[in-house]
């Protein structure tokens, strides 16, 4: 066996390298140098991103346990960028006295979940996939419960870990049934063996709900709002964007690669789940007072929209999905960034606290507005393009009714996004949030997000590149 092939897993090794360096630095650096920890971490991570952003040729490692496709470079880079933004936004949070000691953990845990996602994405075997899934979710539970003196965080952590394990055990049971009915766990061998027997369908459903859980589709979404609310805001943003982004990508690859022959089964499933997710999440989102819960439901409905790309099962679907994830990363992180900045400084998290925000904090309101418009799919912001492509993907396969329902739901979603805009711009308040000066890192993240939200849609090469590569999927 040629072990040198392992060295081709650049992304994973490079990330592992970053993790180990940071870990060692955190352990051994003296107090004097520790204050450079975060800049160093960010720079290192940036280097990691830059090194791994160029797609390479397809290759397999370890007899197909790990399979690299060019599109993986993109999705991983996008996740990296998202993570970087989360790091930038978390800077202030991690510099607080209570948390300074734990920042090494934060980075390590975050990066290990990211590593798990890498493996999930590039898995060529259910074993690697499952390991990746668990690597991505177990440290996440620790992250959710990061603030250990906070009841809510603990409760959120418990909810997350228990339900995650519950879901993963069902998923595992599904995998075992797949193994039983086919005798292999390699993605490349499975399509020929999956013939659509009831057992396989059952196995597929059991397996898939594990991913549905991670993507938080209705009715597997109930954890999401509570966990999002309980976790620290930066972690919530990481959870809602990066974790979800990787999961949808993986769901797509699995569905078209492994379960392609079950397309007549999974399309109706996704159809129903998409409708349920979008509609029910929207209905819940309408009445939320807490912004984080609000964004939780909004992200559930966004996940429903992503299903429209998946359901097409085509190359267009793949590229629009990746593109959607990219845009979603920027839009959602911008929103979470604003929320976290405000929460850090004032502890205010409810929508009515945002009354008259524009008067005191025009820039934050502006970023928030852009991100909300982008999430709502309003041109000329990037969200419009991504939504359009997703709808096109679904329509290209004739899912007009689904597109129609989804579009009707955009009205509801626009309504609740406008509620926040209304609070910020229209409402008057006697006690508005006082002017806030955000730190440098956060401002960089806002600048990046704003720029991306405005520009991505117009820079068509981004999409074209993704599309070019997703054809080679």
């Amino acid at each position, binding site marked *: 066996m040629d072990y040198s092939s392992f060295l081709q897993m650049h992304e994973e090794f490079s990330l592992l390298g970053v993790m180990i360096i940071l870990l060692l630095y955190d352990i051994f650096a003296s107090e004097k140098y520790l204050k450079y920890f975060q800049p160093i971490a960010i720079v290192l991570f940036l280097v990691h991103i830059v090194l791994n952003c160029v797609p390479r040729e397809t290759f397999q490692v370890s007899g197909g346990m790990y399979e690299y496709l060019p599109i993986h470079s993109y999705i991983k880079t996008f996740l990296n960028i998202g993570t970087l933004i989360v790091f930038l936004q978390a800077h202030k949070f991690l510099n607080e006295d209570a948390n300074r000691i734990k920042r090494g953990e934060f980075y390590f845990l975050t990066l290990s979940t990211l590593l798990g996602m890498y493996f999930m994405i590039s898995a060529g075997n259910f074993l690697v996939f499952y390991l990746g899934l668990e690597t991505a979710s177990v440290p996440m539970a620790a992250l959710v419960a990061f603030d250990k003196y906070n009841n809510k965080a603990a409760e959120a952590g418990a909810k997350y870990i228990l339900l995650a394990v519950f879901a993963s055990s069902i998923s595992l049971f599904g995998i075992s049934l797949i193994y039983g009915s086919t005798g292999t766990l390699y993605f490349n061998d499975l399509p020929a063996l999956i013939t659509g027997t009831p057992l396989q369908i059952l196995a597929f459903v059991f397996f898939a709900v594990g991913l549905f859980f991670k993507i938080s589709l209705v009715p597997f979404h109930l954890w999401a709002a509570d966990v999002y609310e309980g976790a620290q805001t930066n972690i919530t943003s990481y959870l809602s964007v990066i974790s979800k982004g990787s999961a949808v990508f993986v769901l797509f690859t699995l569905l078209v690669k492994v379960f392609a022959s079950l397309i007549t089964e999974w399309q109706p499933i996704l159809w129903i789940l998409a409708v349920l997710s979008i509609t029910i999440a929207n209905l819940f989102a309408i009445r939320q007072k807490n912004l984080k819960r609000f964004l939780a439901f909004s992200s559930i409905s966004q996940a429903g929209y992503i299903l429209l790309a998946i359901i097409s099962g085509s190359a267009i679907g793949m590229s629009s999905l990746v593109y959607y994830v990219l845009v979603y990363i920027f839009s959602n992180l911008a929103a979470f960034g604003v929320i976290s900045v405000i929460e850090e400084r004032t502890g205010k998290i409810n929508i009515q606290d945002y009354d008259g925000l524009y008067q005191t904090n025009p820039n934050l309101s502006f970023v928030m507005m852009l991100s909300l418009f982008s999430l709502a799919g309003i041109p000329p912001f990037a969200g419009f393009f991504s939504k*359009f492509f997703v709808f096109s993907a679904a*329509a290209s396969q004739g899912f007009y009714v689904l597109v129609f329902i989804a579009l009707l739901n955009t009205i509801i979603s626009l309504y609740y996004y*406008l509620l926040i805009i209304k609070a910020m711009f229209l409402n008057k308040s006697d006690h508005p949030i006082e002017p806030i000066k955000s730190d440098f890192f956060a401002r960089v993240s806002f600048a990046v997000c704003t720029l991306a939200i405005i520009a991505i849609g117009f820079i068509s090469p981004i999409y074209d590149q993704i599309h070019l590569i997703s054809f080679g999927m």
Partner: protein
Amino acid sequence: MNFLSLYILILVLMMMGLFLSKSRKQIQIIMITGASFLLLLSGALTYLYLTERAAGNTAEMLFRADSVWYTPFNIHYSVGVDGISVAMLMLSSIIVFTGVLVSWKIDPMPKEFFLWFCLLAIGVFGFFISIDLFTMFMYYEVALIPMYLLIGVWGTGKKEYSAMKLTLMLMGGSALLLVGILGIYFTTGGSTMNILELSKLKVPLEMQRYFFPLTFMGFGVLGALFPFHTWSPDGHSSAPTAVSMLHAGVLMKLGGYGCFRVAMFLMPEAAHEMAWIFLILTGISVVYGAFGAIHQTDLKYINAYSSVSHCGLVLFALLMMNQTATTGAILQMVSHGLITALFFALIGMIYGRTHTRDIRLMGGLMKVIPFLGVSYVIAGMASLGLPGLSGFVAEMTVFVGSFQYADTFHRILTIGACASIVITTVYILRVVGKVIFGPMQDKHHETLTDAVMYERIPVIVLTAAIFGIGMFPGWISSMIGDSVLPLISQFIR
């Protein structure tokens, strides 16, 4: 760079300038300069267009520019104009120009107001120069969203409710529309988004039956198609003056224009088949809107219902699907755009003085503010279709065109639509009689001052345009009529 793109470029530059501007003075200078450039550009465009046509260029669209944007979806940035778009661009730039002047002293936050205003204008201009389905749709939506903030922040009355209702209903329209657009794109084989090329392909008839109503209603919501018009009264009455002007004057025309350019042009068979349903709906719009206006007491509500009626007439005429009626429809768009903008501008100015829009609380304003009073009467006369003013030209073209059908159904509808002009007379005269004429109702109104310079200019510009079209309709009518012909031939084939 195609010079049609200058429309967008100028507005983007204006937005950048606004970002950097510091004082109200700078904002005003930026806005008026930019708006004047737009007006000049439209004038130049009209001139160039006419000379080009006179030189014998018979291409369906002139000044074409086309560059690929998104290859996978065949999305191009594709612009071009024909007589219809030229007319609409002219209208838009007049209304943007006057809108800027009307909001000369807008308060608070002039910078933000004009930023949104410019974004709205980008949507409007972009829509009219686009010939690519995607960019059309994009610009369409660009135009919708600034409305929320413009109404919500700078509006009056129950502005939040109205803004929300307007935005959501129009968004609902665009939801229908998007399904239609995707349907058109994919059922023709997903090879092009260019409407000119799409028109040569064929949407299968059984699919047209789904997508035509969707697309038509999608645009129809913006065109105040009964029963999706209820955003209009609330929205228009709550919006700040310039926004009402732009919205009723131009944005509602996007609806009619889209119905024609996209829904009917690309799916003519279904249009033929289903025209009767929408003819009934639009016929109802026309009469219903007019009757609705009779009962109102708020000036803006009256005008909003009147817009429902007049915009109904636009769609009504489009659905008649012959050259004369369609030309009339486009003329009606232009004419109604100008008239309603003038109305809203005047109502805004009157409201700014009397602080009420309730016609029962006003009276005899002619005595104290003769300029506004006379202009209001002119607007009213134009609205009720007085010859010599633009409304007459448009309405008569519509009626003559609509009457070119021999069957009872079309004829009865046309007669019904004609009847609306009487009802229009009733409500217009009711307002004029109560507000402008008659005895003074409120002692405080005796000290009102007449319009000042920056208020007079927009009124004069709009009035001049109304008179211009009303007295010399030949050139614009033939410009539109010639451009309508190739589109209409789609229906006849």
